């Protein structure tokens, strides 16, 4: 319709052409007929005139034989005078047998057309026709008669016929015109109907319209063709609209779960906000992020991850009202728009419900998977009226929930907003911090309890921010991990630590402990990078201790074991950091080549206050020792704590009591030198 523009100007040229054609045909036929008739008439008139002249000559000749025979000129004249009744005859000349003019007749008085002696008469006089007859009686020649006739009568007849012909022609034209226009009206009626139907289809876009067909002529065929075309178009239209519907569904819905996607959510949220504004209700935007989904995906594969997402979607659906929009924002993030709320707590109930429904384990392909979710909630109008901002705020709240230990819900607050903005600006500045020399490595000493000797420094990064001052790792390392800056940052710290450690060796074999993020560690090239640093700094591998958290195990125990075994084979020490705070799972411990286990400061802090903590730490120390590991207590700040950990059997200590992190560990080295002088026993440290 839009590409093929069919135009029929029915009222105009086509109809006129048809009428014109009818007129032309009828007038041509008439003219031809008339000329044929006139020509025929002319020939017959001439022949008739000739015949008439011949007959007249015969009669007059017969009648004048006696006059000739009896030399009666008077009688002959009288006979000839009888020709007066015959108007076309101009003259008649009667010659005696001798050839002398015997009698003559002239139509016009005073004219003597006849020669005195008979002569050869021209029969081809222009405008005349002549006839010459021998006058005889009973076979005997008595004389000759010569008749001359003009053609005026024929010409007059001709003129009359021409007039009639012209009149007939005009009449034919009029009749032809009327008949033609009536005929074209009749013939073009179906064409006009067809054109009308086409226009109707075009203007109303009505592909279900059909042309009624009568007869079996070309126009009927055209109509049939048109109908076929319409049904084809209609079919294509249906297919197209189906495809469009499919595309639209795909554009607005998530393939995997069938839930609305981010776009549709934004649309629904916008709509919900408009309704809420009118009805003065609250709208809550609930932002759900699964905890540990990435680990499931990485360890059990995408297929399992996808099924998990589907089942999560099902569970969420079961807890959300029909009127509320549940959407998948992508990855492991979901969102719910709750409409018509009066109090914020109503959203809290839904969030708690969601946390509860996700808490029971999922069983997928024989794997029992336990996950949780971090939920952030923002409100209209409390936190704003812009859909995009609300989404951002709910995201910030969710992030905050995640940071606060996961599996919980947080409402958005202005502080969170500030924190989020701060975080964003930090993220930007962190990218240039290494190059600007703002990352400085501090070293905190670790001592062997038995010998009280300095055995190791733990490298701890500090961000010396030009305006915010010193920023602790707990604040910027997560940012670095999320943004991937941790890779260059980690490499920088490793390099710095190894170089520093090399300088300490004058004071004795002192190790350097470097914290490695799971994100660094899971990279294929990590072990090679460590080897390269050791090679070009020249630090003996035994003087490097790499500290990993339990989360490393979650990325895949087997793979982690391979990397650790390679490092261990080099002689690099391995410590498990912050033990007891993460997803502690004792099962993997016997399979991994850890040298040391670091007890988290949170346990150390509570030692002596809660007997069960004491018992647990004691058990841990025993376990570690049984597995051939040394135990390092972190965060020892008081003499009491020191006594405790010493009594529980910890091998080494670290904490403010013994030394804070410092960018210049020289004083501790001096201490070490003194100790060295004091003691002649060079016991093995850091190695099993």
């Amino acid at each position: 319709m839009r590409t093929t523009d069919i135009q029929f100007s029915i009222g105009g040229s086509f109809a006129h052409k048809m009428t014109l054609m009818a007129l032309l045909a009828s007038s041509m036929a008439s003219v031809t007929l008339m000329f044929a008739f006139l020509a025929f008439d002319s020939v017959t008139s001439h022949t008739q005139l000739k015949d008439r002249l011949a007959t007249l000559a015969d009669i007059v000749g017969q009648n004048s034989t006696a006059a000739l025979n009896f030399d009666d000129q008077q009688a002959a004249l009288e006979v000839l005078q009888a020709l007066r009744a015959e108007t076309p005859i101009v003259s008649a000349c009667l010659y005696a047998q001798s050839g002398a003019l015997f009698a003559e007749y002239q139509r016009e008085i005073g004219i003597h057309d006849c020669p005195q002696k008979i002569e050869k008469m021209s029969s081809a006089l222009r405008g005349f026709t002549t006839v010459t007859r021998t006058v005889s009686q009973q076979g005997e020649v008595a004389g000759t008669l010569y008749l001359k006739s003009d053609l005026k009568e024929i010409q007059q007849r001709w003129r009359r016929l021409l007039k009639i012909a012209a009149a007939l022609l005009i009449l034919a034209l009029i009749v032809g015109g009327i008949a033609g226009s009536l005929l074209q009206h009749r013939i073009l009626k179906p064409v006009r109907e067809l054109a009308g139907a086409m226009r109707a289809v075009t203007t109303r876009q009505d592909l279900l319209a059909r042309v009624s067909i009568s007869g079996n002529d070309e126009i009927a065929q055209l109509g049939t063709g048109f109908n076929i075309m319409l049904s084809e178009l209609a079919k294509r239209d249906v297919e197209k609209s189906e495809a469009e519907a499919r595309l639209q569904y795909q554009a607005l819905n998530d393939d995997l779960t069938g839930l609305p996607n981010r776009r549709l959510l934004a649309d629904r949220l916008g709509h919900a906000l408009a309704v809420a504004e009118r009805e003065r209700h609250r709208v809550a935007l609930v932002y759900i992020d699964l905890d540990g989904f990435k680990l499931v995906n990485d360890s059990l594969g995408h297929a399992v991850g996808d099924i998990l997402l589907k089942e999560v979607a099902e569970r969420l659906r079961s807890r959300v009202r029909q009127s509320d929009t549940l959407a998948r924002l992508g990855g492991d993030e979901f969102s719910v728009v709750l409409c018509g709320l009066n109090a914020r707590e109503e959203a809290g109930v839904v969030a708690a419900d969601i946390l509860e429904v996700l808490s029971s384990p999922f069983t997928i392909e024989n794997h029992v998977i336990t996950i949780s979710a971090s939920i952030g909630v923002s409100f209209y109008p409390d936190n704003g009226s812009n859909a995009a901002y609300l989404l951002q705020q709910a995201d910030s709240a969710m992030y905050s929930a995640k940071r606060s230990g996961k599996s919980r819900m947080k409402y958005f607050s202005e502080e969170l907003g500030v924190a989020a903005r701060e975080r964003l600006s930090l993220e930007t500045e962190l990218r240039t911090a290494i190059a600007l020399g703002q990352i400085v490595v501090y070293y905190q000493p670790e001592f062997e309890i038995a010998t009280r000797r300095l055995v190791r420094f733990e490298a701890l990064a500090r961000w010396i921010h030009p305006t915010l001052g010193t920023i602790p790792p707990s604040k910027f390392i997560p940012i670095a991990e999320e943004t991937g800056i941790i890779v260059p940052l980690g490499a920088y710290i490793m390099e710095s630590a190894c170089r520093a450690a090399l300088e300490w060796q004058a004071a004795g074999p002192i190790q350097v402990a470097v914290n490695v993020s799971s994100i660094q560690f899971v990279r294929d090239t990590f072990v090679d990078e460590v080897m390269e640093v050791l090679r070009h700094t020249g630090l003996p591998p035994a003087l490097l201790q790499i500290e990993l958290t339990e989360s490393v195990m979650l990325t895949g125990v087997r793979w982690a074991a391979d990397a650790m075994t390679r490092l261990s084979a080099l002689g690099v020490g391995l410590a498990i950091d912050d033990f007891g705070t993460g997803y502690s799972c004792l099962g993997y411990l016997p399979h991994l080549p850890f040298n040391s286990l670091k007890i988290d400061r949170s346990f150390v802090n509570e030692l002596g206050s809660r007997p069960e903590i004491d018992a647990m730490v004691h058990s841990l120390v025993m376990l570690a020792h049984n597995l051939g590991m040394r135990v390092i207590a972190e965060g020892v700040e008081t003499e009491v704590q020191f006594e405790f950990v010493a009594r529980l059997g910890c091998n080494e200590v670290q904490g403010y009591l013994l030394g804070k992190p410092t960018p210049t560990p020289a004083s501790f080295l001096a201490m070490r030198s003194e100790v060295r002088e004091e003691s002649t026993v060079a016991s093995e440290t850091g190695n099993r």
Partner: protein
Amino acid sequence: MDRTRDERSVRAAYVFNLIKYVEWPPNSGEVVIGFIGSPATGEVMQSMLNGKTNQSRTVKVLLSPSNEELQRCNIVYIEDSQTGEIRSALKRLKGRDILTIGDSESFAPSGGMVGLVKVGDQIQLRVNLDATQRSGIKISSRVLNLAVIVRAEQNANN
């Protein structure tokens, strides 16, 4: 005399021409003309017409025919000089299929059929229709058109 002879010739031609316009009931192979009159005229007539054929009939001229010869005649020409004999001759021929021709003005009115009367330069035909109608002779209307029709005088009929 030339003039007379010329006139005689014209009369002879007239007689000959008349044959074409006259029908006799029994058509025989010849046309017999009986001449009653002066020998001079008879000779002209005889010399001009005898032996000629007219409508495939041979013309035969008998001068001063006898009564028997008269019976065979188709035409009898009676010259006006013989006025005295006209009536008796006509009486004899009355009722017969014989065309009687004479040249006097009184011929036709006296019971003759055709008179060739000289009027001025012309010779005029005078036909007595009663006489022709009494006989079985038919004269063509064309001749009749040329002729002056005359009536028989009362006394002549008697």
